[in-house]
């Protein structure tokens, strides 16, 4: 272990300390007056940030606040326009990730940087700076096994990456960084893709590594995790550090206010505690019986799903990404063929009907990837606004679009949904994620749909827009719409859903009323562990 730490440091660098013997009087990282702009956008505005050996320093902020830019500078991906970076007291100028790795900086990115068809050992060899021709995967695998045991990571070096779960892949990333001699570990929103149990394990690992003397930077916007794991917390807003504090000196609410710059309803009342408005429940709006479908690779992705949503009811679907969520939304909206079972919408058989017919039946779809299947980035706002209803009066007359009606329709949509844009002629791509999503949501919900299929409606959206989107979905529920809400964010499900069903490997593991929902239990079900609890009611 220690041999790697030394050999992987470039000889020009005077680093001699290892994590076990940190030089406590010098900060591990010191970034001073860092500025970086992309075109006219200032991503980092004279940021000063430091982290010590043996410390977990959390960096929180909304999407677009500049967290990832700052860390990409540290990882050698971007070069700052101005400012200085010091590692262990020595000034450094990284020109590539290779330089950063050489100085002991390891990043665990949100999207893992692993080559899927390769084995764990091959992925590690890829990062090794060692001359010689042969792959030596056997030697690397041996050393990885030892390292994996030492840090209790439980990684099999021979396994292929595509065979591993998301949580395991993350541990591969950590193991690889440790092997390559990283002493400063940066985690970019590492818990976004994990089950609650895996999150717990990761946070414990982070504390453990800080205890060994590593310097850990933890980027997140999940404030309870930050409060649990961090020694210090820095809050970024619009490219500037607005505060650096400690968990003891602050609370979630204060942090949220600092992140957004104003009070937020969601953080004031814990959503799960909020009494839910009673809505008159009608009959079953969506009814799935024995629904099965194939995934992208032609393998079964949904296996005999039974679900029912009544009008005025929101059913949340929880689960780790890739367990059939996308396929579920696509079969209901007619985008993916059903191989067995039935889909009934408002009592009418809709199995394998064309998507247009399902849309006309009053189904709104807020897809997983808004720029891939919901909106057209290169077209202007009015084109995007009428994408759903362009073929109906008053927007058209026969084959011709009525420009004036289209303009009026678009302006109404932008105003009603508080979409901030220079005008309807702007290209959709230039809007922020939050404004894009508000436009999409407004378009889909405009026709008072009877069934709403919403997949990750607030992913990649800032806190303010999240609040607006949640309000819109609540209003639809109060109006009597049935909602199928698919999300990886358990907080979002707890805040909006009446019942939560957990998807694992294409099956419904169980359905729980939100009122009696327990995170631990949902987490176990997300990991595929059958719950023995009596209160789990299979499909009310």
């Amino acid at each position, binding site marked *: 272990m220690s041999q790697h730490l030394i050999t992987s440091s470039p000889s020009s660098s005077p680093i001699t300390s290892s994590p076990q013997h940190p030089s406590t009087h010098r900060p591990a990282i010191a970034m001073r007056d860092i500025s970086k702009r992309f075109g006219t956008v200032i991503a980092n505005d004279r940021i000063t940030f430091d982290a010590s050996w043996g410390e977990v320093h959390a960096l929180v902020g909304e999407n677009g606040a500049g967290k990832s830019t700052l860390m990409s500078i540290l*990882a050698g991906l971007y070069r700052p326009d101005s400012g200085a970076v010091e590692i262990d007291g020595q000034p450094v100028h990284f020109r590539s990730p290779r330089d950063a790795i050489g100085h002991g900086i390891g990043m665990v990115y949100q999207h893992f*940087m*692993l*080559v899927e068809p390769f084995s764990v050992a091959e992925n590690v060899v890829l990062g*090794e700076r060692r001359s010689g*021709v042969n792959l030596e995967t056997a030697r690397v695998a041996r050393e990885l096994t030892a390292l994996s045991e030492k840090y209790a990571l439980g990684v099999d070096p021979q396994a292929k990456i595509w065979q591993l779960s998301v949580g395991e892949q993350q541990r591969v990333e950590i193991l690889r960084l440790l092997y390559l001699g990283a002493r400063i570990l940066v985690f970019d929103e590492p818990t976004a893709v994990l089950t609650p149990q895996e999150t717990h394990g990761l946070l414990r690992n982070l504390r453990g590594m800080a205890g060994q003397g590593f310097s850990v930077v933890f980027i997140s916007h999940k404030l309870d995790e930050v409060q649990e794991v961090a020694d210090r917390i820095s809050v970024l807003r619009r490219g500037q550090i607005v505060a650096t504090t400690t968990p003891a000196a602050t609370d979630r609410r204060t942090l949220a206010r600092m992140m957004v710059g104003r009070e937020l309803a969601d953080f004031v009342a814990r959503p799960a505690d909020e009494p839910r408005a009673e809505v008159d429940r009608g009959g079953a709006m969506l009814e799935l019986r024995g629904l099965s479908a194939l995934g992208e690779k*032609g393998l079964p992705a949904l296996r005999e799903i039974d679900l029912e949503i009544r009008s005025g009811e929101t059913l949340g679907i929880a689960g780790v990404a890739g367990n059939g969520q996308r396929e579920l939304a696509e079969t209901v909206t007619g985008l993916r063929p059903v191989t067995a079972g039935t889909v009934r919408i408002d009592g009418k058989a809709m199995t394998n009907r064309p998507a247009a017919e399902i849309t006309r039946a009053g189904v709104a779809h807020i897809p997983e990837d808004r720029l891939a299947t919901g909106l057209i980035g290169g077209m202007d706002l009015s084109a995007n606004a009428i994408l759903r209803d362009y073929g109906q009066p008053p927007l058209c007359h026969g084959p011709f679009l009525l420009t004036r009606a289209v303009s009026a329709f678009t302006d109404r949509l932008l105003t009603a949904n508080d979409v901030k844009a220079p005008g309807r002629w702007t290209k959709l791509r230039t809007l922020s994620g939050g404004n894009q999503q508000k436009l999409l949501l407004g378009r889909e919900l405009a026709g008072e749909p009877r069934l709403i299929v919403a997949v990750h409606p607030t992913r990649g959206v800032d806190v303010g827009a999240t609040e607006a989107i949640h309000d819109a979905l609540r209003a639809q529920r109060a109006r009597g719409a049935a909602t199928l809400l698919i999300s990886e964010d358990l907080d979002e499900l707890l805040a909006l859903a009446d019942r939560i069903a957990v998807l694992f490997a294409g099956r419904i593991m169980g359905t729980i009323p939100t009122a009696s929902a327990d995170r631990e239990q949902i987490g176990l079900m997300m990991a595929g562990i059958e719950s023995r609890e009596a209160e789990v009611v299979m499909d009310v």
Partner: protein
Amino acid sequence: MSDFLTPTFVISVLAAAVAAGTAILFACLGELITERAGVLNLGIEGIMLMGALAGAGGCIWSGSAWVGAGAALLAGAAMAAIHALLCVGLRANQVVSGLALTIFGTGLSAFLGRDIVGMPPPSSFRRIDIPFLAEIPILGRILFQQSALVYVSIALVVFLWWYIFRTRAGLRLRAIGERPEAADAMGVDVARLRALYVVMGGALAGLGGAALSLGTNPGWTEGMTAGRGWIAVALVIFAAWNPARAAAGAYLFGGVEAGQFRLQTAGVDLSPFFLSMLPYLFTILVLVLSTREATRRALGAPAALGRAYMREDRG
């Protein structure tokens, strides 16, 4: 009809298949390493033509077939450098750049070569029997009574297989075609390596051209590759990006090419037009099958093939 399908006939067809398939094999190996690096090069046909011209021209100028082969390597590398500059450096569309390269190579070779059309090169790669190995029954006749270029190509197949699957450099090559972001994060210089493999792939395709103009069809004629570059591109898919399978595929096409003459001389009653159509029919079939996403996955296509890599994309 009497000597049709006798052992002697079959062996002579197989030996001719190896000889005729060598030009395609070089081009196919060139495209293979290019695609392994994540870059699609549809300019192989044009590069082969430039290689064929440079091979014939270099040989006529110097009198040595080896100098011709060297000129072909350089010409191929120079052509591919255009593709590398456009697609790796400037991140232009790889399909458009490749097609442009084919059109450019076809026109340029016809223009530059107009003075040496039909001129026989003073030297060419002739049959060299390898001592002892050439005596092996059947196999010796097929593999070891060939020209030097054939031996080079066989050695190259073995070398590339070892290089791609057994060395650190090969691991990096596969990684930049599979997941350039991951390679970049691990400190691999994606752009530099991609450009390098595009240029080396072009050099091999150029040598493939010389294998025609200094080997099986000595001398330069306009458009003499007759679509072999396209066959090579299709073969890479058929070969599932594996050099050993590329050799099998190239010899199969060589067999079809060699077989049509021999079938005609053996008096089989099939239209020669139909027979000369076969390689292209097969090429279309391979391309149609391979455009299916599922097939590509099953064959193990490099995941980032055809996708330009830009670090800022990650945001």
